[in-house]
């Protein structure tokens, strides 16, 4: 009698629990089913390095996934130019210099900027103090190593501003010509060549650095671009990508060592010689360029109109474009689209 009562009680309890569990699981799957991830692809404008740490970190840490994107990360390099791939629709997103993107758009490739990551020019001129150069005026009559195309815009504007006559020597990928005193002034990216020069035994105090943003010639550089068509089709996913990328950068700056590990891993995968110290320098400078200390109140990832107009204006002055694309057509501020 006693035992049978226990038995019936147990059965009832079991049935109750089983029903509850089933109900619960149905409800959960209905509520929490991830909306199907949307496929997208991305390419940075060069082979893996800390210049793109934010994207690799966002990819590696599942931030794109969190924003509903199943991303394919393509490896950049000299043979894979993002603008070309974007134009051919072989890739959905890519990083491009602001000046390049404006030119391309005016040439008919309808790129839109969905996030201006690098706010400040990393392009700079360096000179050896030992060659008597400590002020912009000292460059007059000297040999200056210069890269091609958009890398010349700022230096030329700079020379014009100070009325300098210089001998332009085409500059290759190495800084050896500068190190051997074959040129007096060299072009450099702050996060890259500048450190290469230091890594060849030149001390910073032996160099004079000309940062263009200090001379009113700031050109924001790397931004994230997509085709206008893609943006119109699904602004939500485009802006999710932009936001995830920004979050990736923020994570990288907060966890620099982890970010470096991730970058070095991708460098190894791409068979690119990797030097941790160099990448560490690069990540540190990217932080300075993306989050400048004298923040002009521009939110991370935003394109300031005055920066846009300055770059477009300089392009026009140099005859590289005939007409500047409209700021609002060119820049799609994702804050307006992403939140729903």
């Amino acid at each position, binding site marked *: 009698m006693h035992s049978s009562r226990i038995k019936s009680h147990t059965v009832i309890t079991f049935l109750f629990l089983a029903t509850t569990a089933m109900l619960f699981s149905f409800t959960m799957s209905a509520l929490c089913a991830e909306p199907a991830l949307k496929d997208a692809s991305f390419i940075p404008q060069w082979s893996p390095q800390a210049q793109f740490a934010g994207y690799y970190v966002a990819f590696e840490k599942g931030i794109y996934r969190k924003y509903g994107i199943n991303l394919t990360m393509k490896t950049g390099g000299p043979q894979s130019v993002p603008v070309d791939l974007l134009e051919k629709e072989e890739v959905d997103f890519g990083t491009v210099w602001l000046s390049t993107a404006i030119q391309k758009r005016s040439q008919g490739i309808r790129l839109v900027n969905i996030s201006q990551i690098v706010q400040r020019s990393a392009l700079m001129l360096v000179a050896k103090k030992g060659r008597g150069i400590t002020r912009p005026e000292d460059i007059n009559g000297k040999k200056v190593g210069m890269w091609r195309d958009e890398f010349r815009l700022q230096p030329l504007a700079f020379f014009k501003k100070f009325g300098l006559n210089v001998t332009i020597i085409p500059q290759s990928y190495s800084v050896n010509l500068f190190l051997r005193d074959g*040129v007096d002034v060299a072009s450099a990216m702050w996060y890259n060549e500048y450190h290469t020069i230091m890594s060849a035994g030149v001390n910073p105090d032996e160099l004079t650095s000309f940062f263009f943003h200090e001379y009113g010639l700031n050109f924001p550089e790397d931004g994230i671009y997509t085709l206008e068509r893609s943006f119109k089709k699904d602004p939500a996913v485009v802006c999710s990508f932009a936001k995830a990328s920004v979050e990736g950068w923020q994570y990288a700056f907060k966890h620099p060592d982890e970010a470096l590990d991730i970058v070095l891993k991708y460098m190894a995968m791409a068979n690119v010689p990797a030097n941790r110290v160099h990448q560490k320098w690069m990540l540190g400078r990217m932080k300075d360029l993306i989050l400048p200390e004298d923040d002009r109140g521009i939110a991370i990832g935003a394109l300031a109109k005055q920066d846009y107009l300055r770059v477009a204006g300089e392009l026009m002055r140099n005859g590289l474009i005939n007409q500047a694309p409209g700021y609002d057509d060119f820049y799609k501020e994702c804050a307006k689209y992403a939140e729903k």
Partner: protein
Amino acid sequence: MLRNKGIAFKLVLFFTLSSACIFTAIFTYNYFVSRQMIAKGIEENAGNLIMTTTNKIGTLLSATQKVPENIAYFLENSTNDEQELFQVLYAIVEKNPEIYGAAIAFEPYMFKKDRKFFAPYFYKAYGAINFKYLDEHYNYFLWDWYQIPKEIERPEWVEPYFGEGGGILMSSYSVPFYKKVDNKRQIAGVIVVDISLENLRNIVSSIKILQSGYGFLISKNGTFVTHPLKEFIMNETIFTVAEAREDPQLRDVGRKMIKGGHGVAPMWVKSAVTGKSCWMAYMPITSSGWSLGVLFPQDELMADITSLNQIVLFLGITGLILLAVAVVFIARSITGPLRHMAKATEHIGAGNFDIELPPVKTGDEVGRLSEAFSFMRESLKEYIGELTEATASRERMESELKIAHDIQMGILPKKFPPYPERTEFDIYATIKPAREIGGDFYDFFFVDDEHLCFVIADVSGKGIPAALFMALTKTLLKAKATMGLATDKIISRLNEDLCIGNDMSMFVTVFCGILNVKTGEVQYTNGGHNPPLLIKGSGDVAYLEKSGELLVGAMEEAQYTARTITFGPGDSLFLYTDGVTEAMNERNELFSEERLQKELSECQDKNVDHMVSEVMQKIEGFTGSAPQSDDITMMMITYKGK
């Protein structure tokens, strides 16, 4: 603290500490000198090794340098004959096994007016000599090998690079050449030869120093051209390594190296392979501006010295321990007998002379001390024995003397009032003997019915002679007095008798008086005694005038006179010995005659016994706890009349 420790402890501490100091000093000196010697050895060895290696590399490179330099000279004056150029280039690649490839690259339109790019290139590949033109796709104008010598206008070794197809590390030597155009010498192009650096790498990687030392080569940019760690080669510079290690010293050395310096960086350079501290010697390869570094692992270099030092240290410590043990042993041999003797001394101090002393084993100081100690114990034992005996006999004698003294005191009249039936006068006397037996006495007796003779005397000296002399004096005096003589005669006779056979030259002061109780007339003679005080019934107190007469017993022919005073009723005479006036307090002040006179005149109660007692109290009050040095004797006589 240390003061209370034993000798053994102090000895061990002192010897061990001082030896340890000496040892440490020697050890340290030895260590540093041997290290310096090693360092010097390294510098010499390193110098030789590095010199040989850099020479080898230098020869290798400068042999290569000659070829394009000669061509440059040749081209300067040659006509631009394409066929001739091909032959020359082909010959260079064919005839020089170390040369992998060679090109002559012309400035735009310098070879022919219509050719911007002209650069024939012969190179070895697939076991044959191949040919190609370096063209606009390659755009040789932008390459370091072309641009650098052109801009700096002198030959240059370009930074090493991995050859096409990877794997082989190469470098190129490029030489600018010039031509005269319109009588102006201007740049015409660059001759370049490529060489494999494999031979050079083999030379450097053959450097093996002890177990883990190695050599490395850096380029002009500080880039590692050879290094035991493969990932360093062409990927790290000495400066990125310094940056990663946060080692500014390494950066400084790197700068010296790429600037063509040479030297030795001591100790703080860490091996990239083992992480050990190393000495790093470096020397430039002048032909290319590269630099060779060789790391000598510190601990491996010092291994012999370290093991030697360990042995020395071990020996030193063992020696110190042995020394400490020996010191303990020696100290024990000293302190053992000393402790034994200390204990024996305690016993001896407590009077136990039969305690056993440590046996004398040695002839050293401790042995002699034991011997002396033993002798001292025997002497002490003997002395104490004698002393005990002497003390006992002295005590016996003293007690006998005491008895004699008591008897002597007993012969003085002690009963007061002595003549209760006599109303004409009162007499009272007291004597307080000093601890030692003294020679004071007093006496009074009737010579006949009317005449009372009273005497007070003080014999010179103390002790038994004084006591005997006093007894003699008293007896003689009484004998003379009872003969009915006048006082001067009594004293004279006494003097004569005492002088006879007085070899000891003893003497006595005596005051002798005879009172006629009927008339109150007093006849007296003072034989050198303190003058008594006359106390009038009216209360006046005055000393009798000093007689100026001699002590008794000193000179046989001394003359004495008798004087007379007459008492009125109530007059008194106070007699005393010098024990009264010369009583001394703790400040060595005398009671004095003045004080005595004063005390007497202040006395209210004129009864003889009361007055004498009161004076005695005053004396005791005055002297306090100061010991009494002389007998105090006082006598007072008051005439009352009939």
